[in-house]
């Protein structure tokens, strides 16, 4: 949907995805290394523009560009399928479509900004992600940031004609408030480091 949510952190911010970001997003999603665990993406910018136009029509879908405070884009992330769901004990959503440029130091703060958006802006009770099980570094990342495994989704995605399991990991609002200080301390130190090198802002 067209939203106006912007959340600023220590070195990075999330701001709404726009049609002007199409070329940047296509560049990320067609990178052979970055795209190993995502569905094939059209290499044409006009197809991404059309995708964004359709995305604007979906009321339960918020997409963002993660960028430095200077405005240099680092990646994209979305919070979608926003809904009330008894199985998740309240208002919930999935976060995903997460892709950052190679070597980006934004991962930790981007995740923090996703949780701040989910719990402070969208008033969710929980937010979860579903990661291809073979994408072990991302599963490990989510574990390191405090997510708890909720379920294994057998044969959940098809990548290059092969079925893959996915792992659903969840963050509840209550757990977020418990672990937020520890994550923010790391992000703050990293931002200070990037700032001292003149690259954060």
């Amino acid at each position, binding site marked *: 949907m067209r939203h106006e949510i912007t959340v600023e952190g220590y070195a990075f911010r999330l701001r709404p995805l726009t049609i002007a970001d199409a070329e940047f997003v296509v560049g990320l999603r067609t990178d052979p290394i970055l795209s190993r665990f995502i569905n094939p993406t059209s290499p044409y910018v006009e197809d991404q523009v059309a995708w964004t136009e359709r995305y604007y029509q979906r009321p339960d879908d918020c997409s963002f560009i993660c960028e430095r405070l200077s405005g240099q884009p680092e990646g994209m992330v979305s919070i979608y399928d926003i809904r009330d769901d008894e199985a998740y004990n309240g208002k919930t959503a999935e976060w995903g479509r997460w892709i950052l440029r190679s*070597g980006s*130091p934004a991962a930790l703060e981007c995740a923090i900004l996703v949780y701040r958006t989910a719990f402070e802006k969208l008033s969710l009770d929980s937010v979860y992600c579903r990661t291809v099980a073979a994408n072990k570094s*991302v599963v490990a990342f989510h574990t*390191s*940031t405090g997510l708890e495994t909720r379920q294994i989704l057998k044969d959940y995605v098809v990548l290059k004609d092969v079925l893959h399991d996915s792992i659903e990991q969840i963050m509840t609002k209550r757990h977020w408030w418990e672990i937020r200080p520890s994550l923010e301390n*790391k992000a703050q130190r*990293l931002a200070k480091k990037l700032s*001292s090198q003149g690259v954060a802002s």
Partner: protein
Amino acid sequence: MQDTMEDAERVREILGVALGKTIEQGATVRRDTEEAWDSVKHVELVFLLEDEFGIEFDEETMAELDSIEAIVAAINRARG
């Protein structure tokens, strides 16, 4: 050479702390094959190395710290 070997030993121990596991002497540990070496652990590793060796890695170097050998080489460069 002796300094480099000592550095490698210290790096091995620090990497073990960051990854939460014992890394045997001579073991090959690479970021792209070590599943515990995620982006959060990498940030923690960078901070531990900088504190231990009294150096600072720039952003480009941070992304290159993907093995014990690469870390030792980066420490030597940072020392000038």
